[in-house]
């Protein structure tokens, strides 16, 4: 469904990504792991339209989406979340979610004033959907709270909720579990699994928590220094010598040998 083909990205003097290619199948959950500075987030930024690659291309269902803007990708069903949770801090949780769905009836300015009843009806539908999402994420008590007042973990849940409002084809989650308590992490993991199994969402997630990866992912891609080191099933990858070396440095390998 997503095909990343030979992507490279040079920042001045640094090769952040160096010829990365992979594919993501529909309905799968892919984990993207690697040490800090491996280029994971840069890769996300390129796929999600925030950065343009120096070379290479990204395809969604065979269509070239390399240079599309984020809001255009949104319409095609490709969404992402941020490593540091983004939220509309001066809007309530409910409003945060209600902003999301595209092509709402109220978007025609004329209707806003001259077709109130219909706009209100459409608005009610969105509100209902938003409330369902809030229920799903167990954020009920926070519904009318300003999003800026949420805890870090709750903001991450809200990010996930935002993607749910848009009925996406594929969601890129950037460290959704980072800095989140065990309890919330469970809710997040459960939500991701349910969304994947019940609604057929495809996920690609960056994570450092190996338990989280092992529990969720069908396949893991390991990146290091801008390249793909290896890819495969979670338990194979986790025990791979090269991966351990990339993560923990060479010391451990020597220790093992001796």
């Amino acid at each position, binding site marked *: 469904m997503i095909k990343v083909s030979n992507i490279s990205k040079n920042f001045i003097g640094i090769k952040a990504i160096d010829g990365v290619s992979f594919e993501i199948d529909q309905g799968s959950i892919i984990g993207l792991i690697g040490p800090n500075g491996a280029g994971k987030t840069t890769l996300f930024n390129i796929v*999600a339209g*925030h950065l343009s690659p120096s070379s290479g291309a990204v395809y969604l269902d065979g269509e070239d989406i390399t240079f599309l*803007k*984020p*809001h255009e990708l*949104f*319409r095609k069903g490709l*969404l*992402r979340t*941020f490593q540091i949770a*983004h*939220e*509309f*801090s*001066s*809007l309530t949780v409910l*409003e*945060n979610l*209600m*902003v*999301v*769905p*595209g092509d*709402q009836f*109220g*978007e025609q*300015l004329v209707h*806003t004033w001259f077709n109130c009843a219909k*706009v209100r009806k459409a*608005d009610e539908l969105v509100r209902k959907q938003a409330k369902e999402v809030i229920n799903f994420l167990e954020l009920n008590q926070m519904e009318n709270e300003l999003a800026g007042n949420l805890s870090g973990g709750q903001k991450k849940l809200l990010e996930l909720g*935002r993607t749910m409002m*848009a009925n996406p084809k594929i969601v890129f989650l950037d460290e959704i579990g980072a800095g989140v308590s065990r309890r919330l992490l469970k809710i997040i993991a459960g939500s991701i699994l349910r969304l994947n199994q019940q609604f057929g969402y495809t996920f690609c997630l960056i994570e450092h928590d190996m338990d989280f990866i092992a529990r969720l992912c069908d396949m893991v891609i390991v990146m290091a220094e801008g390249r793909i080191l290896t890819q495969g099933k979670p338990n194979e990858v986790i025990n791979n010598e090269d991966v351990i070396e990339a993560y923990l440095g060479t010391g451990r390998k020597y220790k093992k040998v001796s």
Partner: protein
Amino acid sequence: MEIANAFALLTNFVIIPSITYGAQLSLSALGVTIVFGILRFANFSHGELMSFGAMVTILITSLFQTKGINIFPIPTALLALPIGIIATIAIALLADQLIFRFYRKNRSKPIIFTMASLGLMFFMAGLIRIIIGPNEYSFADGARFLISFRDFKAITGWDQGIAIKQTQLITLVVTLIVVINLLWFIYKTRWGKAMRAYSDNEDLALLSGINPERVVLLAWIIAGALACVAGTLYSLDKIYKPFIFTQITLPVFAATIIGGIGQPIGAVLGGFVVAFSEVAVTYSFKKFLTYLAPTNWEPQGLVQLISTDYKYAVSYIILIVVLLLRPTGIIPGKTT
């Protein structure tokens, strides 16, 4: 009796003028604050945008007057106002397409936008002087007073009267309608939500499928319409003088910042704060105190804090005080 006279005096010379002036400031401060919220720069050309709107309204008004179209006793200008609004929106959008879009594409710093708007301000001031000249225009036809000074005194028998000009009432009614509609739009509708979301977090707004160009377009439409209404009301109430709009930019910006920049409700509050301070500080309280003070205690001087010549300085003073005591403004706003 004495108290009634003092009350009438204060109402007539301080309260009514500052409410009217405050309403006019609020409307233009709303425009500045919305452009700031969405495009993230201080739009110095807003004053000239007001002037442009008022100018078009005046030209259309005089056209109507020569054709004999009027809606007596309401000023003809209200009939011409929609055309003025459309013209102002058009020039705002044109300016955006020709100037600001370029910098937006380049993701320039806010200061560059601000300087560009300063240039636009001078350009528009020149354009307006070419079209209508530097002279004053008074175009408030229709009934002049709702309650005149003399009638009021005759009815109540007080020494002091309260006069309410028709333009003052029109200012209030129009402001009320515009502000209520605008706040409803911003806080209740889908587009308002999109605008607040965009103003709050641009990156996330893009990811939520909000089309930035449409939000920007909408911001200019609202700002243009507000500028035209504010400019027309201001010159209808006082007099149209092209030069005055360069000066009025100051109290407008003071109102915007005092209210908390980027906050619509704050801009409205800020407008009234500035107006009340400006009028009250430059008003001579001698007569007022004479009514209230016991015999022989009447003040000798004017009891005026500063001369009316310095009325624009008041905006600066409030601005400095607010920035020192509550840097975020009345309602915590945003910074660039």
